């Protein structure tokens, strides 16, 4: 089996983010590392974050830093990754990509203990960069300019220290003196030797300054001093005239200012009043704001509170350090303060946000200061505060993030054309159920009812130079309605259009006249109001029209074509007639090219399954240039001109070209290239769009030509970052559409469907999925579908949080104490229920989504079981588990006695603790029955078990449970579950159970899959096959009788299969291989499964699912990851495709090595050698290569670049 791997949704979580002027000039951009991808973001003028560029690097990005050479206007990006190399990137505006300026190898690849890449620090003057590892190694590279002003990089200078752990590094701002780097270090050599523990207790963290002597080209340890043992983060303090220089050392509970030859200035970090005493306060992210006259720091704690830190200084002496409560936002992995007054907050989990500064924390708030620091016998006296609503920040935009995807199911619950992906995302109070649909999101601007059922709609401008449309014209079966667009849209009768007849086409003609084509003629309305009518000869009627601004072609019944042009006087003149062999099905003329008199091509579709290209040039007017036969009569044609592009912000190099698009009656969109000179057709592609014949309309998207295709669902064809994308819109079936531009809506679409007129715009181009979000209460763990009522049952649990009642009580107390609100916010209960949506932030000053749940002791758990109706998004039943119980597994089960019908089994643990040792008070399996038509749950009974039941599954009318290392079969009793059979021989902990016929596929937490059988006659469960490789399973899925798909903790996806002969033997053996099992050797099963597929995703896969995302398409394996990405693995069906793609992949590896220096093959084989998987993400980078390289690769494959692109498109279309 060969698989094609493709990422459908790139990772949405953020590892780290930096800001700077990467494009060059005044604007500021943000570079975001999302694990395997590097994105360049920019907030636009409206405060919306736009993605300028996104590239997959096939490696793990661990750290980013930006620097600028003195006097330069542009920042460079330094990337620390798992490649064992330091990479310096520069963004190229012209090509819209990152260029690798330097790549220097210093060590082995992989995330290792002593290979640098984990930390990066740059000299604030951009003269040197330090790259460090968790332990021992630190390397300094000197950055400079050569005579041609190009960036140069030196060979590395070592600043190693053995037996030393590094916590953080930072550049120290010391103006133009020698660059200095600071590091928090901990020496463990003595602690490793001393068995009394004294050395370990005395182990002391040090702050060390390393000086790079630019004259001697040497790095030396300049200064080292003990610091607080809770230190974890360093922040550079501006120096060299702008400030006192030195560093801020962030430690647990403290922020300390330190510099060489300067006494410590220490202040406590204020604590939340409700924080348990044993918990510290740790700073997890920091941002610096610098202006000419002042600077301050924003430090965020692990609970989400941001503090503003300011330093009072006289020259180089710091007199006071102040920490003031600023605001509270969800915990971030990185924060960036932009010059334009924005704060970009990259959340650890859940959506990222862009905030605007309203104030800079000058108001009245809790403040801790070094001057008021009080030391008592128990240590320093804490300062307390309570979080409040946002005062200094206001959220203006957000970027959706699925991180982490906890569970996923692909189902078509809404009976739509394509299935929906239900994902459980997020953590704690920011958890949600997200329903993903492939396609672009549409925002509806207006819907208005019309007096009848319209069949067509157009928009028209009054003058070619107008920015906005003047009229919307709607055609009914026997009338035409004209609406004028202004402040409001209203019906008018003075437009000159004939309203007593249906219309076939309405458009602007010439510079300023309007044309209405109706079955009996053409009405030409001049700018001054004069009307010219052209009438059809005899009893013929017009059936089809094609027109652009200067040319009109009509088709009369019987197949006669008449061609008109606009004369110089502004008159519409008949030029030529042509008799077609039969009735015309559809026509189209390409728009007039810039600076030309006419367009050369007319496309005519006939009912004899052909499309002809006719010339409109005066010399060979109405000559047939080419003929294309198609599989079904064409319904609609569109000639789409793609302008020449030479890179820039939206695309790769490609010459101008004309595409002929045809919607066929069998629902296929047929697309072919028209030669600009000869009119010959070549390079055809077709794609099935839906059950109705697609109707094609031209539209504008981001100022470029695009195409709307209306089949049983609407699609948009547009060019995005060099690719032509054809994407469905998440909107209902439309009849007819036209582009729409007005004051309120620059690029919209007006469409008719049923008896309504709809105006909408298309959002967030380039996205694969759009999502509907339903908030949840705690971290979702798993969910199942209730088969009859199609409700979802979700289990959610969180460690270290208070129960809903306790939280409610604390909140009331707080509100009473603060005396907030005149009427006391009586609806708090509802707000906690279901989160009550994110829109209520203003009303509820302390929404849990923003502030997080108050922390409780680590051994306390909260958990709930929720029944949710996915159609309405309503929770119909929510059971909070009592008494420190937390739910971990769920399944539906039909016991064979059928007394209750479908029951729900939930596995829970009471008082579970992971640290210092995994302990629990008890485990339980709850059995619930569905009441109230499946909307609600009622407890039948609960059964105590000895471990955590992490896996439950129905099996032959009984319940299989994995409890620690025990696989047990239960039957339903009156008071409790009854043990029927068990097997205690599993190596570690059972985390998944799948069943098929009489086989049971058990996944172990550390030891991969075990294939088991149940013998009913002997009532015995036994393992007949297992895996030879230890795999730390995080997800598993049953593929077929012999095959399982699994994913491990290290980011690998793999398939194992029982060899055919072994499988047959076991099925044929009357004892079912039991005799052999009894002879099992070396504590293992007698048979071993074989690994047939292996692939390193580079991200922890949390769920696997086999599904088809397109109607009638083949199934593929979909996965969701902790970083919030979704991917698919599609099985190849032909050997030729495998050969083609493996060669393409090989050439791509050679010609286009990954950006951050990791070898592609080594990355995909990081833990186990990649086996039989083609990396589609690498292959899909083919269109981004320069054209000559594309041709070179294509030549080696004996194809044209066009054919390769077609193949790539074809495979993507097979998946989504």
């Amino acid at each position, binding site marked *: 089996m060969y698989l094609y791997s493709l990422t459908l949704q790139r990772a949405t979580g953020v590892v780290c983010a930096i800001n700077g002027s990467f494009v060059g000039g005044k604007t500021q951009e943000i570079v975001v590392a999302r694990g395997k991808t590097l994105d360049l973001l920019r907030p636009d003028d409206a405060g919306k974050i736009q993605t300028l560029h996104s590239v997959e690097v096939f490696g793990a990005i661990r750290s980013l830093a930006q620097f600028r050479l003195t006097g330069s206007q542009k920042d460079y990006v330094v990337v620390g990754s*798992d490649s064992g190399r330091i990479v310096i990137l520069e963004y190229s505006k012209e090509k819209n990509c990152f260029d690798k300026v330097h790549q220097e190898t210093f060590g082995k690849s992989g995330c290792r203990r002593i290979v640098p890449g*984990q930390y990066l620090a740059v000299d604030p003057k951009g003269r040197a960069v330090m790259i460090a590892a*968790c332990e021992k190694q630190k390397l300094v590279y000197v950055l400079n300019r050569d005579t041609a002003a190009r960036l140069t990089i030196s060979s590395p200078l070592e600043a190693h220290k053995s037996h030393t752990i590094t*916590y953080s590094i930072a550049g120290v701002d010391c103006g133009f003196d020698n660059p200095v780097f600071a590091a928090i270090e901990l020496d463990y050599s003595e602690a490793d030797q001393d068995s009394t523990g004294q050395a370990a207790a005395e182990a002391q963290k040090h702050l060390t300054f390393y000086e790079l002597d630019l004259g001697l080209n040497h790095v030396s340890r300049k200064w080292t001093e003990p610091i607080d043992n809770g230190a974890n983060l360093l922040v550079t303090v501006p120096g060299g005239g702008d400030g006192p220089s030195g560093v801020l050392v962030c430690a647990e509970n403290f922020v300390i200012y330190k510099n060489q030859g300067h006494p410590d200035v220490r202040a406590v970090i204020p604590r939340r009043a409700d924080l348990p005493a044993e918990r510290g306060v740790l700073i997890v992210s920091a941002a610096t704001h610098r202006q000419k006259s002042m600077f301050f720091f924003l430090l965020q704690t692990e609970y989400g509170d941001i503090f503003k830190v300011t330093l009072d200084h006289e020259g180089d002496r710091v007199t006071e350090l102040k920490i003031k409560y600023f605001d509270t936002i969800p915990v971030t992995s990185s924060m960036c303060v932009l010059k334009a007054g924005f704060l970009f907050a990259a959340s650890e989990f859940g959506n990222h946000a862009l905030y605007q500064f309203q104030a800079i924390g000058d108001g009245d708030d809790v403040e801790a200061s070094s001057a008021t620091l009080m030391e008592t016998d128990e240590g320093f006296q804490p300062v307390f505060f309570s979080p409040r609503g946002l005062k200094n920040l206001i959220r203006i935009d957000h970027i959706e993030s699925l991180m982490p995807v906890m569970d996923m199911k692909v189902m078509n619950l809404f009976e739509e054309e394509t299935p929906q992906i239900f994902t459980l995302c997020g*953590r704690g109070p920011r958890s949600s159920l997200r329903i993903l649909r492939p396609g672009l999101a549409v925002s509806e601007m207006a819907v208005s009812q019309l007096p009848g059922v319209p069949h067509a709609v157009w928009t028209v401008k009054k003058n070619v130079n107008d920015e906005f449309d003047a009229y919307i014209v709607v055609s009914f079966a026997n009338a035409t309605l004209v609406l004028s667009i202004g402040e409001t849209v209203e019906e008018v009768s003075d437009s000159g259009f004939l309203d007593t007849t249906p219309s076939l086409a309405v458009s602007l003609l010439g510079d300023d006249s309007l044309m209405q084509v109706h079955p009996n003629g053409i009405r030409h309305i001049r700018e001054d109001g004069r009307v010219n009518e052209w009438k059809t000869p005899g009893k013929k009627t017009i059936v089809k029209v094609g027109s652009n601004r200067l040319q009109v072609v009509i088709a009369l019944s019987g197949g006669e074509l008449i061609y008109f042009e606009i004369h110089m006087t502004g008159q519409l003149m008949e030029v030529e007639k042509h008799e077609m062999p039969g009735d015309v099905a559809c026509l189209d003329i390409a728009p007039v090219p810039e600076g030309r008199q006419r367009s050369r091509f007319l496309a005519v579709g006939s009912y004899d399954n052909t499309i002809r290209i006719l010339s409109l040039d005066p010399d060979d007017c109405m000559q047939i240039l080419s003929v294309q036969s198609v599989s079904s009569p064409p319904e609609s044609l569109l000639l789409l001109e793609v302008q020449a592009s030479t890179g820039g912000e939206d695309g790769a190099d490609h010459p101008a070209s004309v595409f002929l698009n045809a919607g066929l009656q069998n629902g296929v969109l047929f697309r072919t290239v028209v030669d600009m000179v000869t009119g010959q057709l070549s390079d055809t592609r077709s794609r099935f769009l839906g059950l109705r014949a697609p109707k094609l309309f031209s539209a504008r998207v981001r100022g470029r030509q695009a195409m709307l295709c209306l089949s049983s669902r609407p699609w948009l064809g547009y060019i995005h970052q060099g690719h032509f994308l054809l994407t469905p819109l998440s909107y209902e079936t439309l009849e007819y559409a036209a582009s729409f531009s007005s004051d309120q809506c620059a690029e919209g679409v007006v469409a008719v469907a049923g008896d309504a007129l709809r105006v909408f715009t298309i959002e967030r181009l380039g996205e694969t999925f759009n999502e509907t979000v339903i908030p949840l209460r705690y971290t979702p763990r798993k969910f199942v579908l209730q088969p009859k009522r199609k409700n979802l049952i979700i289990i959610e649990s*969180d460690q270290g949080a208070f129960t809903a009642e306790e939280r409610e009580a604390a909140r009331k107390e707080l509100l009473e104490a603060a005396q907030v609100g005149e009427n006391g916010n009586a609806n708090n209960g509802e707000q906690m229920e279901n989160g009550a949506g994110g829109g209520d932030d203003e009303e509820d000053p302390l929404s849990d989504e923003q502030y997080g749940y108050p922390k409780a002791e680590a051994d306390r758990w909260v958990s709930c079981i929720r029944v949710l109706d996915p159609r309405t998004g309503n929770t119909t039943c929510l059971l909070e588990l009592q008494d420190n119980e937390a739910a971990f597994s769920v399944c539906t089960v039909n016991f064979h006695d059928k007394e209750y019908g479908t029951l729900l089994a939930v596995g829970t643990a009471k008082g579970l603790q992971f640290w210092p040792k995994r302990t629990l008070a008890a485990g339980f399996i709850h059995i619930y029955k569905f009441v109230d038509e499946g909307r609600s749950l009622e407890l039948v009974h609960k059964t105590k078990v000895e471990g955590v039941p992490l896996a439950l599954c129905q099996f032959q009318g009984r319940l299989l449970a994995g409890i620690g290392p025990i696989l047990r079969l239960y039957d339903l009793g009156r008071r409790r579950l009854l043990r029927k059979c068990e097997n205690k021989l599993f190596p570690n902990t059972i985390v998944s159970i799948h069943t098929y016929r009489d086989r049971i596929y058990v996944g172990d937490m550390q030891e991969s899959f075990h294939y088991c059988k149940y013998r009913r006659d002997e009532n015995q469960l036994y393992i007949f096959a297992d895996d030879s490789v230890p795999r730390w399973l995080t997800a598993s899925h049953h593929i077929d009788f012999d095959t399982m798909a699994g994913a491990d903790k290290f980011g690998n996806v793999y398939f194992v299969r029982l060899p055919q002969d072994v499988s047959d033997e076991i099925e044929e053996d009357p004892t079912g291989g039991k005799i052999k099992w009894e002879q099992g050797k070396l504590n293992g099963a007698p048979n071993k499964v074989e690994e047939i597929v292996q692939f390193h995703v580079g991200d*922890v896969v949390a769920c696997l699912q086999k599904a088809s995302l397109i109607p009638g398409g083949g199934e593929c394996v979909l996965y969701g990851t902790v970083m919030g990405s979704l991917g698919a693995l599609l099985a190849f069906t032909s050997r030729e495709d495998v050969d083609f793609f493996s060669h393409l992949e090989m050439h791509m590896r050679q010609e286009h090595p990954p950006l951050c220096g990791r070898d592609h093959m080594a990355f995909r084989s990081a833990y186990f050698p990649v086996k039989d998987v083609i990396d589609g993400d690498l292959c899909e980078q083919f269109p981004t290569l320069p054209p000559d390289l594309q041709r070179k690769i294509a030549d080696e494959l004996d194809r044209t670049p066009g054919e390769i692109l077609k193949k790539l498109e074809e495979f993507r279309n097979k998946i989504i």
Partner: protein
Amino acid sequence: MQASDRFNINSQLEHLQAKYVGTGHADLNRFEWAVNIQRDSYASYIGHYPMLAYFAIAENESIGRERYNFMQRMLLPCGLPPEREED
């Protein structure tokens, strides 16, 4: 030191042990071995952000806190070393 000594197996091994932390030797005891494995594991958890996030979800801590905890545990990953036998 003679020129040939530079290439004998012992000096090569010493060189490796000095350069690559964790390279084993004949007298390595169980504790030292375990300490190395643990430190390597923690460094790997810290280096692989998705794994760090995975742990953070399990323990319901912030990723920053989880990273700090792992760094702290690198000091004494396996508890106190056993008492040395006098030799």
